[in-house]
């Protein structure tokens, strides 16, 4: 019957789309293990290009910077985002403008925020560097952490907060001993998400890093490298970056039972 032809057509579509999605990255991953490093011929499996990364000072420096940016921005945004989420959910009757401001950093195009921050810092005469990247990353990261924690708070039993207060705990103690422990999986998931976003983020970092090479992050380093063409080292680096973000996000999603905002 005609329905069977339609089903075959569907399979064909899936095949084409998945090929389109996966062939480019597979080729990249494959080449990163090619001993010769060239797409012209397969000369044997090798991890030497990964080894080469370890001796490239620029890359190591950039990776170090990225780690600093990601760690600090994650720490800051996790605290701010969690507090925001708890405050917003206790308050409940939040105006539309408030919800918009909290939601905006997640959908605002990177380029807009990047330009706005660059002109802001420049006008204020702030000297730019890793610290400006960090505070800028906190802007969108705290929104993501907040969204993840809020999702968990939607079915939070507030009576345990009242019970804790009833038993004589101060607000701060209740927060520290009752609310935060219950929310911990969501907070960790949010932090992991923030960390990954920060590690991957390029445009805002690029605009707010200031002049010079001292505060180059890994994505900026990759951008600089790939502007000058294809090398086996970039293949290896790209494969590593890809693996790290996929693993971190899968972990975050596992922790938070499949609830990822904006995904």
């Amino acid at each position, binding site marked *: 019957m005609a329905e069977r032809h339609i089903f075959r057509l569907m399979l064909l*579509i899936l095949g084409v*789309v998945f090929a*389109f*999605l996966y062939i*480019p990255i597979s080729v*990249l991953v494959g080449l990163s293990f090619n001993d010769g490093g060239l797409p012209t011929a397969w000369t044997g499996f090798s991890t030497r290009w990964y080894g080469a990364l370890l001796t490239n000072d620029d890359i190591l420096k950039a990776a170090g910077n990225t780690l600093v940016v990601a760690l600090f921005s994650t720490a800051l945004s996790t605290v701010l985002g969690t507090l925001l989420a708890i405050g917003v959910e206790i308050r409940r009757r939040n105006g539309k403008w408030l919800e918009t401001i909290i939601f905006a950093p997640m959908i605002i195009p990177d380029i807009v925020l990047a330009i706005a*921050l660059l002109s*802001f810092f420049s006008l204020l005469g702030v000297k730019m560097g890793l610290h400006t990247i960090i505070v800028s990353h906190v802007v969108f990261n705290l929104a993501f952490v907040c969204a993840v924690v809020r999702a968990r708070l939607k079915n939070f039993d507030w009576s345990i907060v009242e019970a804790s207060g009833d038993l004589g705990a101060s607000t701060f103690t209740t927060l520290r001993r009752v609310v935060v422990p219950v929310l911990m999986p969501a907070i960790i998931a949010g932090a992991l998400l923030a960390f990954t976003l920060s590690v991957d983020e*390029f445009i805002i970092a690029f605009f707010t890093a200031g002049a010079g090479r001292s505060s180059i992050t890994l994505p900026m380093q990759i951008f600089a490298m790939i502007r000058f063409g294809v090398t086996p080292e970039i293949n290896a680096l790209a494969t590593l970056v890809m693996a790290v973000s996929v693993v971190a996000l899968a972990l975050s999603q596992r922790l938070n039972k499949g609830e990822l905002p904006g995904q």
Partner: protein
Amino acid sequence: MSADRRPLLLMTPAMIWLFGLMVVPCALILVLAFFRRGLYGGIEYTWTLENLALVFDPLYFQIFLKSAGIAGLSAAIACVLGYAAAYAIAAMPRRHQPMLLFFAVLPFWSNYLVRTYAWIVLLNREGLIVNLARWVGYEGELPQMLYSEQAVVIGLVYNYLPFVILSCYAPLSRLNPEVNEASRDLGASAWTTFRRVTLPMTVPGIATGFVFVFVLSIGNFVTPALLGGGQFQMIGNLVYAQFLTANDWPFGAALSMVLIAVMLGLLMGQAVMADRASGGKGARDG
């Protein structure tokens, strides 16, 4: 609870952060656009509409149009491919769908630069596609594939396709299959059923996908820089140049302002449409 200020206290640090580093800087762009450019790149604090007028100067406005064209083309291709993929996933047995969806979205999670770079590997003059062509025996001159408008469109489609698959899958998976069957039962062919029943009911998903791809593409700066190779400029690259090389901040701000206005207009239009689509379903027995 209304007299309780403690929740506000919890929210304050984050709100200060968002206000100081998002709201104020964005507002700043609006102001900056109306100042004059200083002689040596600084800012002269006198009001002017010149920057805004310059945006609509044919020289620059055609870059705007070109960006919109590329963004529109990318969004359209992504919607066709993404809708087809989402439709195919929704047509598979239910138990396989979560897994298919997961793998359709997985690339979206990897680094944007890396995904773009993958196409440089494929398309460059010593790249895989050229090698493949040689290997099958093609001797002639191959057209330049990298550093072209087509490469930029491919890159944009590639990067944002998973998003469209997701946004189209949502309404498709919520369709009641019996509604399709009812159409067949009343005499419609499979194609007519698709055109008159399935498609109209899933337009909101397509619109969401289109708007997001368009917005992310029109302001895109990485993909044109890497896959366009400076052959042409898109609006994002023009803005970038004003701030970082040409040092004409007010003009950069004016460009950004128009760009942001286009983006916001589209996003808000899409939000209103999505709202109306879901609002209609909510009102039962009205």
